[in-house]
């Protein structure tokens, strides 16, 4: 990996970490509410996947702040969204779980486990029909692979040979339930094998993720149809701020945290550069928070806007 690329990767990971830590703090202070799912521990995976797939459409889950950042959506507009402000990327209506920005080909931010997967398939269908260059990536957890619609999506994507990367973030847990307790095996790639080629990668190693996603991207660009990547990863925090994380032992958490993806990359960088990048990331997050604290709330008069389309609309609802 080139030096500059590595620095961007590192910077964005640190930005992600700092962002999540700030979100956590402001959740505890009451500035952020609802469900807040932190990506801490999984930043390497989130960032590298987005950077290796910079041009296609992305569909993801409620654990998406870092992916949104890595897509180039500003920390400000994401933090504002978490604060429920009008200046947020979804106008304060979506919140943490529903970041949308079509200008960055980022389509949520979906909080129904597995529900966004068929949406990604449909988008990949559109892209194929339009003979558009870039494919689609859909990111989801191990738990989401238990939803029937996940398999329907594997089948449809394969039957139609769609340019679609399925990226499974296997952190082995769905809230407090270990994947091994509800599936007959723990490698989720196995589920995709009847339908498409699969790749497996250490999701705590951002460089490895970057390479694997690049390989997958090459594959779909060539019109070979969809491909499945399983990235083994580990979240450092509870499922959301409402989860006390009691189902994992201290030992299990130690093993998990020993794989910190940021620590793994750090030695590859010049230490002065690294310190500067970290400082810059902290600064960017601090500014985002400052901005979010002062940003305006949406006007009450906008409460029922956007239920139906504006402007382009051909009718008026009563």
């Amino acid at each position: 990996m080139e030096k500059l690329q590595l620095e961007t990767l590192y910077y964005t990971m640190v930005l992600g970490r700092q962002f999540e830590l700030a979100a956590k703090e402001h959740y505890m202070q009451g500035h952020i509410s609802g469900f807040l799912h932190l990506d801490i521990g999984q930043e390497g995976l989130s960032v590298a996947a987005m950077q290796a797939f910079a041009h296609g459409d992305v569909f993801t889950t409620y654990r998406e702040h870092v992916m949104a950042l890595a897509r180039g959506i500003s920390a400000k507009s994401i933090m504002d969204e978490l604060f429920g402000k009008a200046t947020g990327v979804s106008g304060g209506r979506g919140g943490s779980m529903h970041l949308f920005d079509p200008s960055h080909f980022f389509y949520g931010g979906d909080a129904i486990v597995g529900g966004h997967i068929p949406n990604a398939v449909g988008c990949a269908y559109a892209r194929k029909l339009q003979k558009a260059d870039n494919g689609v990536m859909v990111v989801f957890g191990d738990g989401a692979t238990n939803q029937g619609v996940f398999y329907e999506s594997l089948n449809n994507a394969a039957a139609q040979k769609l340019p679609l990367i399925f990226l499974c973030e296997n952190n082995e847990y769905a809230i407090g339930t270990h994947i091994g307790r509800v599936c007959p095996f723990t490698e989720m790639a196995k589920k995709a094998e009847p339908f498409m080629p699969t790749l497996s990668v250490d999701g705590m190693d951002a460089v490895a993720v970057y390479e694997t996603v690049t390989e997958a991207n090459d594959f779909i660009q060539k019109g070979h149809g969809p491909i499945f990547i399983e990235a083994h990863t580990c979240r450092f925090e509870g499922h959301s701020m409402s989860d006390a994380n009691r189902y994992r032992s201290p030992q299990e958490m130690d093993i998990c945290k020993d794989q910190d993806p940021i620590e793994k990359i750090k030695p590859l960088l010049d230490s002065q550069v690294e310190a500067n990048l970290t400082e810059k990331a902290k600064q960017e997050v601090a500014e985002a928070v400052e901005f979010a604290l002062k940003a305006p709330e949406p006007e009450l008069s906008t409460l029922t806007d956007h239920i139906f389309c504006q402007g382009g609309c051909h009718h008026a609802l009563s």
Partner: protein
Amino acid sequence: MLYREALNLAYHEAMTADESVVTLGEDVGFYGGSYRVTEKLYEQFGAHRVIDTPISEQSIVGNAVGMAIGGLRPVAEIMTANFALLAFDQIINHMAKLPYMSNGKVQLPIVVRFPQGVSKQLAAQHSESYEQMLAAVPGLIVLTASTPQAAYHGLKKAIELDDPVIFIEHELLYNKKGEVDTQARFDPFKAQIVKPGNNITLVSYLKMVDDVMTAVPEIEQQLGVSCEVIDLNSLNPIDTDTLKTSLSKTGRLVMVEEDHKTGGYGAQIVSWASEHCFYELDAPPLRIAGLDTPIPYNRTLELASIPTPDSIAQQIIQWGKQNGL
């Protein structure tokens, strides 16, 4: 032209006019559609725009949402209303909400269409009506069509709109004949006064409009009144202006629907009327609807479980007599 042919014509025109319109569903393509609504589209527009899907209703709507995000204008067919339940998460949690949740950044020009209702002995898992559930979901426009004319114009308009539309047909209407004036100004959001009258406002939609019209002569004769028959067409939004005008004139409301009575769509209309036209009403509103039972296979039981022209007439005549008509 038959009702199903009118729908087919709307499809043909919309797909010819706009390349981004695609249709998807089970057996819609090569097979020609299980009720022949999509006949010949496959031959004319090809497998890429007339997409045969596997039996995966959740994906049919889920994919339509993604297609719309990707810039297409999908029209999804669900073979029968009952199977739409499999897609309720996609319809309600995704299709109806993404535009709002995204602050309007995502628009979803999607039509989900399906036939519903009691046909002939299709039994409990193939005979339901779900308009009451879907018309209660903010973010969905719910249109119906009771004539070939309404079918043609309604579907064309639905495809044109940039919002998610649920377009509801009735299995027994597909072979209904009627004029289709493609040049007519037909607004599917406006309720139609199918027959003007002065003493009772009969509100209905879909197949029940025909049954009400069949019942009207008997009612008018027995009660010595004239009935105004209104076809709602759009179930959400509701054309309350037309209702209000009619009720101001007649002072009496009868709501007829095929669905089960408890919680049926008609409750919304009657409740709206009693909130907003209380002082116009001279008699308690009457709701005529199906019984609160799954639909039985046996024909005699089946017919007894839903309103028929005869039962509609009898109930209204009895109600009229009890209420001073």
